[in-house]
């Protein structure tokens, strides 16, 4: 049981780091619905284990560990076929994923700057695919373009954003 002061610090930490935690789940699952589901389960477990957290230590490494075990336990028996990555690959990815997800806020800030450099068509494609949940096939059909052309366009936009984000991160204070 946390004392009221530590409980407040726990709530603040969980609230502040939830986006990074969601990014960590997404990086392990590569599927936004699964990531949200696991994020919820992880938050519940973090609440249950709140007394284990030492407020004098970093919150995220502890939360990432809980999230990784949640991912593995939730999918080990139930939804193995839905996993994009094998269990040993998730374990191998863990260290790098934690490192990158810890810098989620900076990466998001860089991404927002990079998004402003895209033209309207590129922004629309991203919106349709990632917000409106349209598959590339649906986008191709709606726009009258070929599927491979849409795939290639998305690939190029993603590559351009990656390069831009890394560049922005290098210039950030």
């Amino acid at each position, binding site marked *: 049981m946390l004392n009221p002061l530590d409980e407040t610090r726990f709530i603040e930490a969980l609230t502040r780091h939830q986006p990074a935690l969601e990014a960590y789940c997404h990086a392990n699952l590569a599927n936004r619905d699964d990531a949200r589901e696991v994020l919820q389960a992880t938050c519940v477990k973090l609440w249950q284990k709140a007394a284990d957290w030492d407020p004098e230590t970093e919150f995220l490494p502890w939360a990432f560990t809980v999230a990784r075990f949640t991912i593995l336990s939730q999918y080990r028996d139930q939804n193995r076929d839905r996993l994009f990555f094998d269990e040993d690959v998730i374990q191998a990815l863990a260290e790098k994923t934690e490192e990158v997800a810890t810098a989620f806020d900076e990466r998001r800030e860089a991404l927002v700057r990079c998004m402003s450099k895209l033209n309207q068509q590129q922004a629309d494609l991203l919106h349709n695919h990632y917000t*409106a949940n349209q598959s590339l096939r649906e986008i191709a059909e709606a726009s009258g373009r070929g599927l491979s052309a849409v795939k290639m366009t*998305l690939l190029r936009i993603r590559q351009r954003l990656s390069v831009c984000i890394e560049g922005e991160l290098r210039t950030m204070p």
Partner: protein
Amino acid sequence: MIEKQLLTLLQEVRDDRDEAARTELNELLRNDLEARSIMAKMLVDEQALISHLRDQSIVSILEPESQGVSRPSPSRPALRLFAWPQQMAAGLIAGVLVGLFGMGMVWAIGLPKSQARLVHVSNGSFEDSVGPIDIGFPSNFGGWSGDPAEVIVESDGNRALRFLETANVTGNPNGGASACNVFQIIDLSSLHQQWDTENPEAQVTLELSARFRRESASNDAQLPKLRGGLTIHLYQAEPESIGEAWPLVIRDAIAVGNKTIRLEPGEESATISASCILAPKATIALISVNAHTRIPTKTPIPLGGYFVDDVRLTVIKQPIFPVRLMQ
């Protein structure tokens, strides 16, 4: 090079459920440290993208013209009653209540206390005028104005409002222009006494309804997500203060109701309605009808094929349903 390969494989697994691609992807990540590093960045950045687009999308739905607009004038602020979390909680409770009352309609119809009456909407049937409506945000009661739209006469003589093009109603060239909104401000001050809105044993709601119709237009292919919609916002404020602080003033609304509909070109017309509780403090209702492209843009988009007619506002008083049922 690896990045392209990883992205391609990821797309194939996602879109085609390609098991061979999944195996190849895992092999690559298992054996190549650089591939793991790139994949971690790629997916974290993808979540950043999803998160950013999600935020943008929420803003565009709630505040279609929000970009680049100045904050409310401090001299004439609309009253803010709730902070965001409270608004969300209040919204959830209101939603549950409205849902309960929706279910309760069947039971409540026979009860003597259930009453409904139309509130006057100026030119709600669009039969009083023909031609373009005023451009810009309304500052007074009693008329339609907003983005480019016109009242047209149909072949059978009926008149309806046609949305002409999307725009930014505040006139801000850097603001969003993804929707064509037409507004009217309604005076609610006389309703409270008449309907005893502070009576805890009854719930008074406002229901806004309108009939939407869509005809074929030359640019239909470019507007796959075009939707018709209506919203109702209640404020405790002077009518002119809403336009001065639009769209940031949206978050100061005491109550909000909205509804949208997606119609295919040529599809039969359909009536939709949106409700909200008539809060005792609300002095005005801002009602709007719109055609929303769901395309994030600052450039006006021609519409032309979307129509709305029969805009009605109804005040409904019902007993507090769960209490009555228990009795």
